[in-house]
């Protein structure tokens, strides 16, 4: 099953690596490179999954996620982050994340999580 996926990361390598892997599985990908652009795109709606970096300049991924959940948006969100400490993972899920993936990451495993999130 293919889906429409928003990929947000300020690191171009990661954005492109995620995008090419998900596109190769037939998903439609839109990329954004910072938190405010991400929120703007996310509130437009129509996403099956959002893959969201946590540490970005300006608005963090956690801020974007909280803003989305405060608006009642229940789109599945996969946080993709270099922060793998227990307290970071707790903060991610507390903000409303559905999945938490730490960098360095396996694009193949990320695709499996996206596929599962789309259902």
């Amino acid at each position: 099953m293919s889906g429409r996926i928003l990929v947000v990361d300020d690191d171009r390598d990661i954005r492109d690596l995620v995008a090419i892997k998900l596109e190769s599985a037939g998903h439609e990908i839109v990329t954004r490179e910072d938190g405010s652009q991400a929120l703007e795109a996310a509130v437009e709606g129509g996403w099956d999954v959002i893959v969201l970096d946590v540490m970005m300049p300006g608005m963090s991924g956690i801020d974007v996620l909280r803003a989305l959940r405060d608006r009642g948006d229940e789109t599945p969100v996969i946080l993709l982050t270099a922060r793998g400490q227990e307290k970071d993972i707790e903060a991610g899920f507390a903000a409303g994340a559905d999945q938490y993936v730490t960098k360095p990451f396996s694009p193949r495993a990320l695709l499996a999580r996206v596929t599962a999130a789309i259902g």
Partner: protein
Amino acid sequence: MSPLPAPAVLQAVLLATSAVVVLMLIALIAQRTLRRRHDRRDVRLDARLRPLVLEATIAEDDEIDALLDRVRALSAPERAHVGRSASLMLRDVTGEAADRLRAVADASGLVPRVIAAVADRDPVRRADAAEALGLLAPAGALELLQALADDRSPEVRTVAVRALGAFDDPAAVDRVIAALALDSGIPISVAASALVQQGAAAGERVRDALDHPDAGVRRGAARVAGLIQAPGAGAPLARLIDDEHEAVGAAAMRSLERLPVREAVPSLLATALAGGSAGEAAARTLAAMPAAWSADALAAIGAKGEPGVRRAAGLPRRTAA
């Protein structure tokens, strides 16, 4: 008062100074022009070659050889660019995509350049080589990283030890454990993270390091033992609660929260009743243990412990009689 130099001398000095300033300006402009040209060339190469590197990360088994042949057919500057791109992307990914990027880097001829850089006089280049060896893991990388872990530059040693985290060979584990020593010049967090990355492969050696004569090694091993669930580490950790170095005892108590053993209870109780920050750490560890083991100790803390220690044990405040 000394007489002023002759006007001709002053004129000569002025002319020489002006010439130096003009030459410096020309050099600056030339340097900027070259850098801009170099940047533009990089942008052009990137636009053309980046898709090739990205494509490799999703290539199927029957597609990868043709793709690697395309890399080998590129010019030397193009291959150098591909190698750099693949190396940078390798920092972000694991699994199949990382294997593909390693193959691309290999096809680009990056490995011989990295190996040559190990002997470079510049410590920055040697550190870059150490990082690349960890990411690319070519044949012979382990031996080269072991040598770099003894480099005269502490920065190079630090990068080499971090890179050794990617290897689960016993020799790599031993070298990382040695880096925990107090006089290694390598931050404990770097060596400890490398051991966590080595995971189960480091388990038995980390357990053995709990009895090491160097307090830094004992402290690092004690911290890591709980994180990687080192088999058989519970009893030695319990002994380390009373180590002569407070930091070793603190690390052991943190690990015992994840790796509890009943024989640690008497030492933990004694430490808790002695109070202070060590007492609070001991109380937290007791509170994390199965109630059947810790109930009596927690009751004793409730009766005789300092307020901070009781709080750390999760006990209610004592009410006034």
